[in-house]
């Protein structure tokens, strides 16, 4: 009977296992190999050792795009964590109509990125766009040219990302609702202020969700592609040249498959190391006690 169970286990996971081997394991090995070759699809890959990596580390555009991506990732993750938490705290109040408000805050995450990108191009139009109109009408200042100004294009993409804090917010909200009410009741009996309740109960109890949002946010931000592709094509003057766009262009516009694979592996190593470092340090600041898992 036990043997039958094992056979059925493997039968049930067969579709996934086939996919895992053919569409994950094989491609990982293959791309590691391609990253050590010169490969333009038209002719077979030619072994070049580590020269793609050497060339990459001497490429100023590579470092520039790493820099742009790092700024984008740090800013968007910071915004998602802080504003997402702030919104979740407020949305956790017991007030009628709260469900509708939660929906409103989450709604931008539902829109296809292509639509959202188009919408934000429209909002960011110099002078006539909604944002510059409001700046002019309400504050009496002439807004920047946003996506066509090298100094403002990246900030524009970061501002746009604040529109999608809903994904982080909803995870925080789930966390907030699992904090036992007794903790607050006990603190109130001891006469704790709401400030100390926030910093001594709520935020420590939310550290698992902060960790989750930090990791999900970083992985997502480092791979951001559509906004740069649709809104700026990496410009003006490479000011929004996000790393994934560089990989895409190398792979599917210049057909430098070898170089693009090397770039992808650099990204993978960076993602892995960041996640590992965050997990390592998480033992010191994430509190799992008292929760049932």
């Amino acid at each position, binding site marked *: 009977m*036990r043997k*039958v*169970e*094992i056979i*059925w*286990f493997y039968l*049930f*996971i067969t*579709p*996934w296992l086939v*996919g*895992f081997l*053919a*569409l994950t394991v*094989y*491609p990982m090995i293959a*791309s590691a190999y391609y990253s050590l070759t010169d490969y333009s699809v038209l002719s077979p890959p030619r072994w070049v050792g580590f020269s793609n990596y050497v060339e990459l580390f001497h490429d100023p555009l590579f470092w520039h795009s790493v820099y742009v991506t790092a700024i984008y990732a740090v800013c968007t993750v910071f915004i998602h964590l802080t504003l997402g938490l702030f*919104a979740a*705290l*407020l949305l956790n*109040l017991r*007030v009628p109509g709260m469900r509708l*408000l939660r929906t*409103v*805050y989450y*709604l*931008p995450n*539902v*829109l*296809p*990125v*292509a*639509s959202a990108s*188009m*919408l*934000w191009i*429209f909002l960011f139009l110099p002078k006539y766009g*909604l944002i510059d*109109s409001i700046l*002019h009408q309400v504050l009496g200042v002439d807004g920047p040219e946003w996506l066509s100004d090298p100094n403002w294009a990246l900030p524009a993409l970061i501002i746009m990302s604040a*529109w999608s804090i809903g994904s982080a917010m*909803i*995870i925080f909200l*789930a*966390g907030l609702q699992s904090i036992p009410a007794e903790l607050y009741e006990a603190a109130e009996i001891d006469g704790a202020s709401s400030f100390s309740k926030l910093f001594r109960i709520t935020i420590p109890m939310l550290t698992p969700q902060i960790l*989750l949002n930090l990791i999900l946010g970083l992985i997502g931000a480092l*791979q951001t592609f*559509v906004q740069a*592709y*649709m809104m700026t094509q990496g410009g003006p003057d490479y000011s929004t040249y996000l790393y*994934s766009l560089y*990989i*895409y262009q190398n*792979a*599917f516009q210049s057909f430098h*498959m070898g170089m693009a694979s090397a770039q*992808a592996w650099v990204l*993978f190593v960076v*993602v*892995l190391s960041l996640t590992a470092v965050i997990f390592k340090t998480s033992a010191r600041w994430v509190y799992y006690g008292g929760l049932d898992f």
Partner: protein
Amino acid sequence: MIRAHRVRALSGFSVLIFGAIVFIFPALWMISASLQDNSQILRFPPSLWPHPFTIEGYVDGFNVLPFGRYFVNTFVIAAGSSIGGVISSSLAGFAFAKLRAKGKDVLFLCVLSGLMIPYAVIMIPQYLLFKELNWINTYYPLIVPAWLGLPFLIFLFRQFFAGIPNEVFEAARIDGCGYLGLYGRIGVPLAMPAVATAFLFHFQASWNDFLAPLIYINDNAKYTLSLGLAAFTSTCDCTPWNQLMAVSATVSVIPVMVFFGAQKYILQGITLSTK
């Protein structure tokens, strides 16, 4: 004390309302602009209420590129991959939650690793593989991978099945139910909320996907809505913003409807996956 509490709740609530207006405004502006004529849109200052009210943007936008057709294409891809994703992932999720076998833990770690690997690392060999199969410019590369299991859905199903007490399955086994029956006749009917959640999750993801269709589809007639929208911008410098907003609204309408119709399931999925 009570009063201070009220004041704080009230100020928090006003911040929320203000934020909600800021958040909903761009979406409303998209709808409003799609119903204006093009001369009105760029008038300064802009007016939120369409005057004159016209559906010209939709009519003209749909004439520039065959967006009706793109709508069908996108639907076929999203539905085809979601059905396959739910079948393959629920099978694997059931096995990981309820069957005992050697190597299970290691294999489950492999499932989870799939969530961590950036698409960029596997996209080039996948592309070359599908090219070998002559699948470029077909929907197979966008549908078939889902039939081979989706890590996030497997995780979701495992969480859900793990929450169903073992006694339910043991009782059925004593009554002579086979393993396929345990999955199909006991597990799946009990897991209908998870089925709905998983289906909707992947349907949204597939509908909104951009990079994979961009890589695999280069024939105009086979475009998805998102690709069509991106092509629309590059085909004209004249920028008829009412048409662009009309098309953007059309691309968003299904995901938004699905979200409103099935909010409960989607939020449930998020809660379940963070546990």
